């Protein structure tokens, strides 16, 4: 399998007032195309930061990140926004749907940035909502949906542009067991049936079991992956 995400010796340091807080301390990681990777680790270990970096919503302090052969860490803000629109689908813990838009309109949002016609957009939205099993809820507003349904709408929004990479940050963190299971099944199906490459951050070992492989982060280092720092100190 070819590599979709290639992270090489990435460091991330956050500045909090006068203090520098190192979050990632030289992470090297490859995510093959079609992979379903779970990132686990305690709070503050740098899981979400790593996910944000490979999704292009944050920049590394050092190191390089290549996604689909492109060095995204060198992109300008405008280039990154345009790249994200075409290549990344986001799934958040709190769903983050726009409350004033109904399910179909929420799913349509990323398509507004494309050149698709209204009719084509409608067809894409219909297909995406069909995949997540919410074709009959397209006119419902987020407040009229259950948590599980909201997360499925969010997944439809993430896949509607057919992105190269799906990133999910604690996608089951706010769901009950039944809805969590349904969401994970859906992610698994997207990976197996639709060959979507998924990187998921989770605290939940049961959720991680749905992934093809799991990596652990601790104190900004991959403990069972490659880390140049780890290797150097070994």
């Amino acid at each position, binding site marked *: 399998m070819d590599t979709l995400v290639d992270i090489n010796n990435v460091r991330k340091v956050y500045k909090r007032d006068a203090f520098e807080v190192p979050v990632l301390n030289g992470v090297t990681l490859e995510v093959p195309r079609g992979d379903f990777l779970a990132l686990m680790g305690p709070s503050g270990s740098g899981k979400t930061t790593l996910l944000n970096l490979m999704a292009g919503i*944050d920049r590394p302090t050092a190191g390089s990140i290549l996604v689909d052969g492109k060095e995204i860490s060198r992109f300008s803000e*405008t280039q990154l*926004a345009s790249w994200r629109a075409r290549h990344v689908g*986001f799934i958040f813990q709190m769903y*983050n749907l726009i*409350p004033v*838009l109904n399910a179909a309109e929420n799913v349509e949002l*990323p398509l507004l940035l494309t050149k698709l016609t209204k009719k084509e957009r409608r067809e894409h939205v219909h297909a995406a909502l069909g995949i997540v099993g919410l074709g009959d809820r397209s006119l419902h507003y987020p407040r009229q949906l259950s948590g599980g349904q909201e997360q499925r709408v969010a997944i439809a929004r993430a896949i509607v542009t057919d992105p190269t990479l799906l990133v999910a940050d604690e996608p089951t963190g706010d769901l009950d067991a039944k809805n969590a299971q349904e969401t994970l099944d859906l992610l698994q199906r997207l990976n197996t049936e639709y060959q979507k490459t998924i990187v998921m951050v989770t605290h939940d070992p049961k959720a991680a079991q749905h992934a093809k492989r799991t990596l652990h982060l601790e104190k900004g280092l991959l403990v069972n992956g490659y880390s140049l720092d780890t290797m150097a100190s070994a």
Partner: protein
Amino acid sequence: MRFLKLIRRNLFRNKLRAILTMLLLAVIFFFVATLLAILDNFESFSNAGEGANRLVVQSAISLANLLPYSHEAKIRALPGVIDTAKLQWIGAYYKEKSNFFANFAIDVDKMPTVFDDYKIDPKEFAAFQADRRGALVGVDLMKRFGWKIGDRITLKRQIFSFDPELTIRGTYVHPVQTTSVFFPMEYFDQSQPAQIRSEVGTFWVKVKDPKQMAAISQQIDAMFKNSDYPTETFTEKEFQQNFMSMMGNVKLLFTAVSSCAIFMVVLLAAITMSMSARERVTEIAVLKAIGFEQRLILGIMLTEFILLTLIGGTLGSVGAHYLYGAVDMGKVTQGFLQNFGVHARTLAICLFASAAVGVIAGGLPALRASNLRVVDGLRRVV
């Protein structure tokens, strides 16, 4: 257009807040439109005689002091003067003091030459000339009181000791001044005590060449400088402006009040818009995450804020336009505001100002929202 739905839904996401803000803007812009319309009204009154090539000669002491008829022949004899007419402000009212309007005694025979910008039907003018107690009435005043030609009206005294009893013989049309009554100077003279019978408030002088107006004006004043009745001569526009300035610097006052009102609404709108932007930090971060560029977010939010203020401004100023179109403000203000209305220019100013309020008040919240880092927005708990 693609984002219009998102803008519209966000605009009314908190309906009560949006409606209250719009109502506040509507009230402020109603007020501003009214003040600007009053200024506009004064301005058009001041410009009433523009291009008519007329000078107005009054007493150098004050407008209330009268000038002798004997001045007229000397003024008329000056080179460049076409003709002159005597005009006396009467200041009477119709039935009640609230029915006030401008009314004058005039040299009827001189109207066609000196007041040639007043359009009068020749037959009606002939009837007016023939009747010593005839009246020529502005078309809008006819409408206001529902008068018809042939109606008899009696005006009640305020300044002079007589109540003009008049028969309407005709109407006139004028670009600005359409709410006055004119009646013959002869009738006024005969009703006055002997000592003021040969005196008048103003002489109106029709001049051949507008370039000569300043020179003729100086000649007139120089001619009577050392007489018992010195004069002060103005162009018609200056005369009207002097008349208006008797009320003080109304323009400065109204402009200051309007500016304060707009400044107040900018502050209030800025508070509302900041709240609205703050509430949406996470949503804005999500939009940016899925690919909405900074400029697009800025454009969407600014459009929303401008729409908010523009709707309020439109409600207020267009509301004022229709209200003043329906209500006779001449009657309401006892003749102070004649032909009053919020015209296209005032409407345009108000709409532009309301959009500007949106830009000024919403600019900073929209800019801050668009500059938000995605990770910061997603982390924020509002």
